[in-house]
């Protein structure tokens, strides 16, 4: 009974810690409990990496601009050992410049900023009307084709915008005309095609420039910059999407670089690379201000997850879901009495479902494990030792991934490609364990445990992806103490499991 007393004490402490901190953050600091009535705040992070060369280094990055719909605020350039300053170029572009006397090995520089919806101040354009750039020179037969295309576009349009739209439609037509086909010869990829569009518009004496930026609705790590084309219609610059011909900036497009400016420049370093990541935080609109206002006073906020670099935040928003998955497993196994194959295997499967989506994930899991079991059934006839056998199963699993991906791709089933998100070591172990189970206990037991695992994974997935749950644990990570307290309580539960009400039912009839 002594251990039980200790347990109660720990539970009380954990509950007080977890609920206390959460309550303080909620009432004193204004962290909302539900993600409802929210405003999306995107945290965008640019990450520069390069190899230092022991010489003084200066890295500069063009910074994002406000638009009519977006406000860029709270920029942080977190990079120890570097001086950081903002510089305004002649073209009114703002650049961030990091500098240091010496740099060695791999250096990482972060630029992090928050973007809100709201009316922002786009950068001022020079008063002077822009002059059209020099006409590009095409070689034959492209020159003739370009002329024909321009003529066609000119005839079917009224002004610069409609001309551009017409031309983009022609360039992107599913069955391009002969002229277009000639022009597109040797053009590979979106970027080169955009360059061609720019050159063609310049031939028509329209001032144009490229606009690179981030579509904020694409959330995740390693985002690429998207390219738009801006043209001057005699009055102002207007963006046009070179893929669809749509005019104007989308509400969530964050411009990062215009025209011929450098996006990034590293002097004194080599092998530089730039990557972007976007994370969307749902913050209650009313509370955004409170949160920011208190940031400097309250230590607890200073130590919140929101202050970490975005990539790390992304990782934690997933890591924090794992304890919830563990709680689901504990409840299903110890209170409900569902049997699973491998204790925490269902959590890993549930995490894989995050990437594959639920339905596709279930189908893929059943196919991979099913086919794996069949092949493993043959392997067991060869009487292999444990470790070589496991290794063989692992190779079979990877082979299955490859086969599924290729077949799925050829059949146009893109969802199948996400099969690689299933952790293969775990899948291999699952197949091995189920196969042994099959030989020792029969197919029925395999169905029970396999079905139990899948059911647990599905339930864990549903709980983990619930918007309120995910938000709550990211905003209040101290609630993990509460989860721990609940798990400790279940750990000492000696009552019946739900399944035992059925199992031992015959015993109540004597």
């Amino acid at each position, binding site marked *: 009974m002594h251990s039980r007393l200790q347990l109660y004490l720990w539970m009380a402490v954990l509950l007080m810690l977890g609920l206390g901190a959460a309550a303080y953050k909620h009432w004193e600091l204004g962290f909302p409990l539900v993600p409802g009535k929210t405003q999306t705040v995107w945290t965008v992070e640019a990450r520069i990496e390069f190899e230092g060369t022991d010489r003084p280094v200066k890295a500069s990055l063009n910074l994002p601009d406000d638009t009519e719909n977006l406000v860029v605020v709270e920029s942080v350039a977190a990079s120890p050992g570097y001086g950081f300053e903002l510089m305004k170029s002649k073209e009114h572009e703002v650049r961030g410049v990091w500098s240091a006397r010496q740099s060695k090995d791999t250096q990482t520089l972060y630029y992090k900023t928050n973007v809100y919806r709201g009316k922002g101040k786009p950068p001022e354009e020079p008063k002077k009307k822009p002059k059209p750039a020099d006409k590009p020179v095409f070689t034959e037969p492209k020159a003739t084709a370009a002329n024909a295309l321009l003529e066609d576009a000119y005839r079917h349009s009224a002004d610069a915008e409609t001309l551009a739209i017409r031309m983009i439609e022609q360039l992107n037509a599913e069955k391009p005309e002969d002229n277009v086909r000639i022009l597109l010869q040797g053009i590979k990829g979106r970027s080169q095609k955009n360059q061609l569009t720019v050159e063609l518009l310049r031939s028509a004496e329209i001032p144009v420039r490229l606009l690179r930026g981030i579509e904020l609705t694409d959330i995740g790590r390693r985002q690429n910059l998207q390219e738009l084309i801006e043209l001057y219609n005699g009055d102002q610059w207007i963006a046009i999407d070179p893929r669809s011909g749509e005019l104007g900036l989308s509400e969530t497009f964050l411009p990062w670089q215009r025209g011929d400016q450098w996006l990034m420049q590293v002097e004194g370093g080599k092998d530089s690379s730039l990557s972007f990541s976007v994370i969307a935080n749902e913050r209650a609109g009313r509370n955004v201000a409170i949160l920011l206002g208190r940031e400097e006073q309250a230590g607890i906020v200073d130590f919140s997850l929101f202050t970490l670099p975005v990539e790390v935040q992304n990782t934690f928003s997933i890591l924090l879901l794992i304890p919830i998955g563990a709680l689901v497993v504990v409840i299903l196994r*110890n209170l409900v*009495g569902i049997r699973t194959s491998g204790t925490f295997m269902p959590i890993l499967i549930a995490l894989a479902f995050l990437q594959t989506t639920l339905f596709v994930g279930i189908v893929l899991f059943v196919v991979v494990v099913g086919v794996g079991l069949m092949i493993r059934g043959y392997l067991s006839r060869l*009487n292999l*030792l*444990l*470790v070589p056998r496991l290794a063989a199963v692992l190779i079979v699993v990877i082979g299955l991934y490859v086969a599924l991906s290729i077949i799925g791709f050829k059949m146009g089933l893109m969802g199948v490609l996400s099969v690689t998100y299933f952790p293969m070591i775990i899948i291999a172990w699952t197949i091995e364990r189920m196969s042994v189970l099959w030989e*020792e*206990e*029969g197919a029925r*037991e395999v169905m029970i445990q396999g079905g139990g695992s899948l059911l647990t994974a599905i339930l864990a997935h549903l709980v983990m992806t619930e918007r309120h749950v995910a938000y709550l644990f990211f905003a209040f990570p101290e609630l993990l103490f509460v989860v721990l307290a609940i798990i400790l309580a279940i*750990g*000492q*539960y*000696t*009552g*019946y*499991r739900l399944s*035992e*009400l*059925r*199992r*031992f*039912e*015959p*015993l*109540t009839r*004597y």
Partner: protein
Amino acid sequence: MFRIATPGKLKRAGISGMNRRNVEYIAQNNPRHHFPRVDDKLVTKQLALHGGIAVPTLLGVVKYTGQIKRLPKFLEPLEQFVIKPSKGSSGKGIIVIVGRDGERFVKSSGKTMTFHDISRHINNILSGLFSLGGRPDVAMIEEMVRFADVFENFTYEGVPDIRVIVYKGYPVMAMARLSTSASDGKANLHQGAIGVGLDISTGRALHAVQNARPVEYHPDTGARLKDIVVPQWDELIRLAANCHDVTELGYLGADIVLDKERGPLIIELNARPGLAIQVANGSGLKPRIEKIEHEIRGQLRRLSSEERAAWSLQAFNYGESEEDTG
């Protein structure tokens, strides 16, 4: 027919659930560092011999592949023997040789194998094919048990054994496990073997279940299961009680077979015995365990295994009254 009991009903019936078994019976009574005493049959056997517990005689142990060379000479005088992995579980990897057919060895199933087959099997044992987690193992060669006739009509192919649960040295509950064609000759209840609850004071059958449902006759042999009376019962209970002294495990499952000449023998001990025994007995473990706890609290000294067995033989003598109310 899908019936469900309320927790209250199960509680009144004194049923212990898996959570109680894990938290109270196993975690509080079975120190983990004593588990190897029962998980490794060779260790169990050595402990048993020291503690005066009857076990099938150990004829030899193969520890290294190199020793297989000396095996033909060793096996020559043996007509019947059993090869088993020391760390195997649920009967995996056990070969029973009942005789010779010229150069070949005859298994209990009637099939034959060559010496080459045997040495390959032993190699598999040594490399851990049958042990938990694939750990390296040793192969034990034992004398074959000559099963007593009592169970002759009550079992199909497999080996009948008696499971006794021993709580803090006191035998609590017992059942016989009889294989059927449905269980493929195995004595595992969840694979369709029959569990026969035995009166702990007399060794008489109380009640029998197959797949958790009551049965009256053995489905393969047609024998009436209630007719089972296990002979040498007092001796068997004393043997079970004694297992506690050598293993120091407070919640223990002793698997016992009856040899024609030597009487009850321990073939395996289990530190995590399951709860199906409650279903076979038609009653719960909890009141009996509470009765033992109460008895222990009232004692001035630790009782010997004989005294504990004697106590158990009279303490749980309510088999008759159960039948009356049922």
